[in-house]
């Protein structure tokens, strides 16, 4: 077993040259679960984009079915107390989930990553102020921080996005700071400095691009976590406000009719779980593909 993995590394590093992209593709697509996750995500994107055409009924209009109808041919997942078609609401919910996930990751990354690079690159009071503030934010459980922020801001998609961005921002700052600290010890950074490159140029042109692969993996995994957190907030009634279709809120609505209409709660639950699982798997696959040494260990 020991020999085998050593050989693998030597093989990976040895010529003949294989294009980076081909190697990436080979590792990425070599695991079934990763491909499964990718397919689920593609279906999800497709659903979210074409929700208007895919949804059989209007997800917001009450009375398209009987109240609390059982699953049938016309309404494959039944309907909720107001007679809204569950499948249609599920399809529209994918938009909410993806929107919250992607915008929050983007906002948190665009603030957290520069903060981390700066904190890792500059020592002294700036570093202390940034990192200790991030440490303080990390002391709050993510869900609690998002909960408090969302309630302070008052719910709704926009405020949930802000709350989740603030709650996940310190994670990026900390990881980026650690990466910067190790990257700045490299000789090529020293060479760059010797040539008289400014701090800003070194950070933007050399530290950031090299810190990117692990950050992409982190962001992909975070997407799942964010969608989960959004569902948690909406489940507690503090996140997305009705009538917007949100999976978390649907779980909560259906929970009261668990015994008679289990599909009402289970359908959005399964959707959430599939999506979170897929983002995790794709993130896992990306990590393997970007850093082959970790293969099979994590």
């Amino acid at each position, binding site marked *: 077993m020991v020999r085998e993995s050593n050989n693998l590394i030597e093989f990976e590093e040895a010529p003949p040259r294989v294009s980076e992209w081909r190697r990436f593709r080979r590792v990425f697509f070599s695991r079934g*679960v990763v491909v499964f996750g990718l397919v689920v995500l593609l279906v999800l994107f497709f659903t979210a984009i074409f929700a208007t055409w895919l949804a059989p009924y209007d997800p917001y209009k009450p009375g398209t079915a009987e109240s609390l109808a059982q699953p049938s041919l016309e309404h494959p997942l039944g309907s909720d107390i107001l007679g809204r078609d569950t499948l249609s609401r599920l399809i529209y919910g994918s938009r909410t989930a993806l929107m919250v996930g992607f915008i929050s990751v983007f906002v948190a990354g665009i603030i957290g990553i520069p903060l981390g690079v700066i904190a890792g690159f500059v020592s002294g009071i700036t570093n202390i102020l940034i990192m*200790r503030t991030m*440490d*303080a934010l990390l002391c*709050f459980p993510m869900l609690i921080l998002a909960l408090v922020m969302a309630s302070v801001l008052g719910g709704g998609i926009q405020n949930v996005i802000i709350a989740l961005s603030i709650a996940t921002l310190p994670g990026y700052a900390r990881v980026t700071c650690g990466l910067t600290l190790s990257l700045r010890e490299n000789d090529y950074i020293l060479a760059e400095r010797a040539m008289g490159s400014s701090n800003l140029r070194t950070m933007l042109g050399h530290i950031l691009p090299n810190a990117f692969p692990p950050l992409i993996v982190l962001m992909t995994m975070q997407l799942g976590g964010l969608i989960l957190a959004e569902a948690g907030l909406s489940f507690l009634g503090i996140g997305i406000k009705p009538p917007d279709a949100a999976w978390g809120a649907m*779980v909560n609505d259906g929970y009261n009719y668990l015994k008679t209409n289990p599909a009402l709660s289970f359908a959005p*639950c399964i959707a*959430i779980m599939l999506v979170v699982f897929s983002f995790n798997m794709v993130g896992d696959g990306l990590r393997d593909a970007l850093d082959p040494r970790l293969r099979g260990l994590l």
Partner: protein
Amino acid sequence: MTTYIIRRLIQALFVLIIVTLIVFFVMRLLPGDPIIIYVAQTAQLEAMPPEMVDELRAKFGLDKPIMVQYFNWVTGIFRGDFGTSIFYHENVGTLMAERFPVTAHIGVLALVVGAVLGVLAGLLAAIRRGKWADKVITPVTYIGITIPVFFLAILMIYLFGLILGWLPIYGYTSPFDDLWKSTRQLVMPVFCMAVFGLAANARQMRSSMLEVIRQDYVRTAWSKGLSERKVIMRHAMKNSLIPVITLMGLGVGMVLGGSVLVETIFAIPGVGRLMVSSILGQDYVVVQAITFVMALIILVVNLIVDISYGWLDPRIRYG
């Protein structure tokens, strides 16, 4: 080492000050005047003369400048006084003293279950890598870290509570009152809370175990002719536990965060449920206090983990 501990303590103190600033000022950004909300809930707002509103404001200390309010709040915490809940008309300290033991009871059980089962599962998966034990455990841990807590809770309630009728679906009883009832009520919430930590611990344990069994000293142990049990238990396991301990520190945060969901679903009168009801009722004194205490617990746990890390792994240098 001593220098490191002292420096780490000063650092923690600095972080603690920032935590109090965050908790206090974020909560005060709340939309709406807590007094008006309070008045509107308890009595008719129209019937209340403005002087009485001002009087109430003075009673809760909300008429003073915000910096004075902050200092009053912080000094109050040091005296163990978290203020008075606007809704319960009770000292928040007393409220939390009633609720925290419930959350701690469930949380500690969940952490123990997660740690013991997680470490064992990860160990088994690592030493039987590629065999059927690994092929079962590893995919299950993937599901464990991705399943939403509320899905697991609802699934268990549906299956064991509603369909099979084996377990009660909500409530909490103190184990000192009725141990059997208490245990039955705790099975589902504890399992829901434990599952993420269990899966995460198992994954971490598996990967660090695989790392450790490739080390030279483990090979030496094998070549000395020691039995598998001795090699694994005495040599490999100890060192692979180190990264798992960091994870257990994170587990405390997961349990506190998860308590909000689990206690709401199972109607458990713990601190998570108090948190949700206080947020919905805009009882900011309670929210402030709970958020602060949770952050404090995590801060202390992280401190302990960081310090014990150096003690467990002497290779770590403190520069």
